[in-house]
């Protein structure tokens, strides 16, 4: 009796405490974000079935799948044996690994692709900028061709003038040379002439002097002089 009372008391004391605990646990489970409620989980599994969104077709898929499997097994089209266990194990493992790896790999691969894309994009932008800069720098020198052509024409003209000037210089030099030579000839001729005249005068004087010394000539001169004086007197010039 005593034991029954003790047991009842214990049950009574345990009941109110146990109930809130269970309720709390259920609430916590329902509110937890990592564990979705069973209804959501069930609808997720149903949605994963391969057919359209209609519930009737989903049910049809399940029934068809189960029926086909049952037929395959019963008709010995597919024999259940230990390899089935391996197949199931491998399928579960691969599905688990795929689920585990898919997202991190996708993130990593996308990051890698983005990095390469960024490198390519930045290099393209750099290249475009470089080409633009080059176009701008070339644009600044757009008058270079006409300017160079003008300078070339000028230099050509200068060279032509220089050559003409050189020709003229040569001509002047030649003329001055000729003039100098001719002058020297003239001087020489003049000197030769002067010396000839001097010689001539000297020879004339010598001849006159020598002729004067001759008495016959002196008499003749004197006779001529007397004749001239007589003539003058006769003409009454004196």
């Amino acid at each position: 009796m005593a034991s029954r009372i003790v047991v009842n008391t214990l049950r009574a004391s345990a009941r109110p405490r146990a109930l809130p605990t269970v309720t709390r646990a259920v609430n916590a489970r329902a509110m937890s974000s990592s564990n979705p409620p069973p209804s959501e989980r069930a609808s997720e599994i149903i949605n994963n079935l391969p057919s359209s969104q209609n519930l009737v077709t989903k049910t049809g898929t399940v029934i068809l799948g189960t029926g086909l499997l049952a037929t395959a097994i019963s008709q010995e089209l597919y024999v259940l044996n230990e390899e089935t266990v391996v197949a199931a194990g491998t399928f579960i493992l691969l599905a688990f690994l795929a689920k585990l790896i898919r997202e991190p790999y996708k993130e990593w691969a996308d990051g890698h692709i983005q990095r390469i894309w960024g490198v390519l994009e930045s290099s393209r932008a750099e290249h475009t900028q470089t080409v633009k800069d080059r176009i701008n720098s070339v644009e600044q020198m757009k008058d270079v061709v006409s300017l160079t052509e003008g300078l070339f024409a000028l230099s050509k003209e200068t060279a032509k003038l220089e050559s003409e000037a050189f020709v003229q210089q040569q001509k002047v030099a030649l003329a001055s040379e000729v003039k100098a030579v001719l002058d020297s000839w003239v001087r020489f001729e003049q000197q030769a002439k002067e010396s000839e005249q001097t010689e001539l005068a000297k020879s004339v004087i010598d001849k006159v002097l020598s002729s004067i010394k001759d008495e016959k000539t002196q008499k003749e001169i004197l006779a001529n002089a007397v004749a001239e004086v007589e003539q003058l007197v006769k003409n009454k010039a004196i």
Partner: protein
Amino acid sequence: MNFNHSNLFINSPLEQFEVTSLLGFNAPILGYMSFTLTNLGLYSALIFTVILGLHYMGNNDKKLLPSKWSIALETLFASINSIVRDQIGKEIYLPFIYSLFFFILIANLIGNIPYTYTITTSIIVSIGLSFTILIGVTILGLSIHKIHFFSFFIPSGTPLALVPLLVLIELISYLARAFSLGIRLFANVVAGHTLLKILSTFLYQMFSGGLIIFIVTLLPFALFLAITGLELAVSFIQTYVFVLLVCSYIKDAIELH
């Protein structure tokens, strides 16, 4: 009842490694030649096709921006390239090591798919591969070092009296590489597949024992899943080890210690 009847017939776990003829014909050429397509031949062709397909997909239509496939392939290429550069130092051997890596890896991975055959569990493939490589490496060493290649069998600083003994030991050790390389791969893959076969046989018996036992068996099935995962890891690890050892053998032949 049907289950119990089928349970009476238990296959040997080593049966999966048998080379069987799928189709063949005898032709009256050169005596009587038998042309046979075995599961080994079929899976070799399948491996070749898968490798080609993988690289075709990884080629990414020659686009500059990589796809997710090409990134995976490029990462594998970079890993193998770093192994070759670290171990040998010459990238001329990269195509060979790369091909070897992909051949063994795809062979092992295809073997992990149920109902398939693993060609590396055939001793003629594994030992044949390692023997061919060792013969090639020896020819490489002889062509580079000529007669000096044999100094490889005499460790430096050996007393003259010990030379015959050490040469013998070194020669045996050198030849043992040809076996150890292939047997390591063969034994690991065979052991894993055999273990899976044995465990799956037990699990199948337990799964077909009733609803309660079915539920209880889910616990060892989880362990089985872990072992399947380990098998998957062994496929990668054994490929890596094989390739790494081939690299070190090539390095030995090039540098002679």
